[in-house]
């Protein structure tokens, strides 16, 4: 679609929108009136979507971000959806100092050296990690980066409640997930393999072979193949698991209980390493490589076609559909392989598939996405404190609290049991009853240009007659729209 024809369409749609209002939102206005004298947060008038269906701009905002903020739809419409994608793929070109400054106060997350983390109460660390994640998701302009951080956090999931992970997870979040979210998959995998938090979580720290009869601990090797790389049907054998485990023997982490200095430091202890010859997925690894086995393993698994397919499938499920078409998966997998596991070209290929552009509004938000999108849509301010975190906990999606290595599920069904708590969140949020979180209610309606327009902003398209009717008669229109099926979709 040329820019000209899009503008024409916008104009036509706006005209249509003006006459399509159904009875208005009198309840919303009444309801918000007492709040209209609140502080001015500089919310400018903005143009919400005007199309009947989710247009290109609304679609890319849905999929590449945690939901549109006021004015973003117009911005993306003006620059073009593809230009927005290109920009989001280069986060270093996006000025995000405002967000950085808002989260700079979480000083523990910048602790260096690693041992500094051990000085903190582990609950304080979890709180800071959680707040930082929420605030970045809500405010960062590098939205695709944040979405990928969320994706990789689940892919390389660590429940920090295990052992010294309690203290070390912030370093994993910083040095593995955030550092490589749009970078190189092999490098991210290497960072993860040597992450002290992961060495605790998957028992790598006790994977050793100091004596002839000692068997390696397979835990990390198995998850490496099953979850992090090839996938459960990726064609590896139990023998491959054992061989990878042998390759990884000897990597340990200084423990809080045993070391006074350099706690959290990862070390290779050659006397704990099995230095014999190995064979991984049909590739021979000669004896005597010592610590070098690690990079051999990374090479073998990241270049394996099953890894490309596994990651392509997961990415397509996140960005396209729960059951993505085969053609899209193949295309994305090919881009992964030909780029040597570079994440940007892989995503570029994904955003280029016809399936990506064809699947609109067909996915269901996970609870974290739902909460963050509500905050973004309403220009809310939040301290991301206990009250908001309590909602996420009830919704079953508190960051960094998933127990098993497979990470929070991407598909919709497991999240349906907590739909009730989404409605509770919508009601509490809309009446400004979440401690530490608020939004400029009255300004929002005015800035959007009325109630119909605000509804279109929230839903990414003009609300249907039934939706407007339901909102108007609900007694709490904003809460109803946030609780509606359409706002659960993206």
């Amino acid at each position: 679609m040329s820019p000209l024809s899009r503008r024409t369409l916008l104009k036509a749609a706006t005209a249509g929108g003006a006459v399509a209002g159904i009875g208005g939102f009198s309840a919303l206005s009444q309801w918000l009136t007492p709040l209209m004298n609140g502080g001015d947060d500089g919310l400018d008038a903005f143009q919400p979507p005007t199309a009947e269906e989710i247009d290109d701009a609304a679609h890319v905002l849905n999929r590449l971000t945690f939901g549109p903020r006021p004015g973003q739809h117009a911005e993306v419409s003006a620059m073009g959806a593809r230009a927005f994608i290109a920009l989001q793929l280069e986060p270093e070109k996006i000025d995000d100092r405002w967000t950085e400054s808002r989260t700079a106060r979480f000083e523990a997350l910048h602790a260096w050296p690693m041992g500094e983390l051990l000085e903190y109460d582990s609950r304080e660390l979890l709180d800071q990690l959680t707040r930082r994640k929420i605030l970045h998701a809500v405010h960062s302009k590098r939205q695709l980066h944040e979405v990928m951080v969320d994706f990789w956090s689940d892919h390389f999931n660590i429940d920090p409640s295990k052992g010294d992970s309690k203290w070390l997870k912030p370093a994993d979040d910083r040095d593995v997930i955030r550092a490589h979210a749009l970078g190189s998959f092999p490098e991210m995998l290497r960072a993860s393999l040597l992450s002290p938090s992961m060495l605790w979580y998957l028992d790598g720290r006790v994977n050793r072979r100091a004596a002839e009869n000692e068997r390696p601990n397979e835990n990390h090797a198995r998850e490496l193949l099953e979850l992090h790389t090839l996938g459960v049907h990726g064609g590896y054998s139990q023998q491959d698991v054992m061989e990878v485990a042998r390759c990884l023997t000897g990597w340990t982490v200084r423990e809080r209980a045993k070391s006074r200095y350099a706690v959290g430091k990862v070390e290779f202890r050659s006397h704990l390493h099995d230095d014999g010859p190995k064979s991984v997925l049909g590739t021979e690894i000669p004896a005597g490589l010592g610590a070098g086995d690690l990079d051999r393993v990374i090479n073998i698994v990241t270049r394996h076609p099953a890894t490309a397919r596994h990651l392509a499938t997961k990415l397509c499920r996140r960005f396209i559909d729960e059951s993505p078409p085969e053609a899209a998966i193949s295309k994305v997998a090919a881009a992964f392989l030909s780029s040597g596991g570079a994440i940007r070209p892989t995503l570029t290929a994904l955003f280029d598939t016809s399936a990506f552009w064809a699947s609109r509004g067909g996915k269901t938000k996970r609870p974290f996405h739902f909460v963050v999108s509500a905050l973004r849509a309403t220009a809310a301010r939040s301290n991301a404190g206990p009250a908001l975190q309590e909602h996420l906990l009830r919704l079953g999606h508190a960051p960094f609290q998933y127990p098993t290595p497979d990470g929070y599920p991407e598909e919709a069904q497991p999240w349906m049991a907590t739909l009730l708590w989404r409605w509770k969140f919508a009601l509490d949020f809309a009446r400004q009853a979440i401690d530490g979180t608020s939004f400029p209610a009255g300004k929002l309606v005015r800035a959007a240009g009325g109630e119909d327009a605000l509804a279109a902003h929230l839903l990414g398209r003009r609300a249907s007659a039934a939706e407007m009717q339901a909102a108007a008669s609900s007694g709490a229109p904003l809460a109803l729209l946030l609780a509606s099926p359409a706002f659960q979709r993206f």
Partner: protein
Amino acid sequence: MNDRLTTFISGQRDPGGTLVVVFLRGGADGLNMVIPHGDDLYHKARPGIGIRRENLLDLDGFFGLNSHLQPLHRWWESGDLALVHCAGSEDESRSHFEAQDFMEHGGLAAGGWLGRFLRTRPDAGSSPLTAVAIGPTLPECLRGAPSCAAIQSLDDFGLGPHVPAGFLHSLATLYRSAPRELGPAGRNALAALERIQSLDTRDDPPAHGAAYAADPFSAGLRQISRLIKGRVGLQAATIDLGGWDSHLTQSVIMDPPMQRLAAGLHAFATDLGAEEMARTHIVVLTEFGRRVAENSAAGTDHGRGGVMFLLGGGIQGGKIHVDWPDLATQLAGPGDLPVLNNYRDFLAPILTKQAPGSDLTKVFPGHALRDVGLY
């Protein structure tokens, strides 16, 4: 609304019933709750604070129940209450925090054992009320549960008191035509809400002449009872009872929580009645027991083996599970009752009864379960 309600209830009727986990925080002294009165070494080790034979309720000629636990005696006699002595975990730290974490996580695993159970059981719950923690926060054992809510009372449930008239009707209208999984989920949630609201407004008196005390423990059990009877799909509930850390003047510290424990459980089991109790398992845990010998302040210090109470669920009660150790030669560390019964071995059959086919290797990874024959 009635058709919705029926759909929800029939979908949520958990044949396994509800697991109620009571955690006695602070290290409850098992030796003075379930007293080995037939063991002279017990009386010798505790000349000041030991419970004399004339002050206890005999159970089997060797063990006796502390008289402050008297309300539980009736459940022992009816065969609903089983006891596990020298119970505990492998954790030897004797630190409240470490030992509680270890017990609630189920070893050095990540997340809580109850959370893992709820996530991996074949009939994983789809109700927003699948798991409830009574209290201000979620306990570690529920960490990683697919959905759980910490509540003080039923009033915390549902959408709260600020739901405008018309809101639910509007939701029902939109979810009626919602796509894919959202439609059925929305109808389920509305039915659940209906259910909760009928509980809110209809504060039935306890049944079978049960009388709950006013303390938070009894009040919390009452909320659990209402949820169970309300058929809201409750699979697990947790509740804490603290105040057991009896380093000095043991009976001053311990008698009140013992009374609260026994009175609360008695009221709860009475209120639920036989039919409901057959589907309800109550498990009482503590992070560790206490030193065998009393200290100079007429108290006891952190030890190892403690006592578990198992009540209801068709368990074969009237029985104490323990191969009683020689208190002269078989004590652990600085003179503690040893842990002879790993707590997981007693949870495991209960979890299997609640949800047959559960993969217990996922619930208790790294622990080889021992068959203990509870049923």
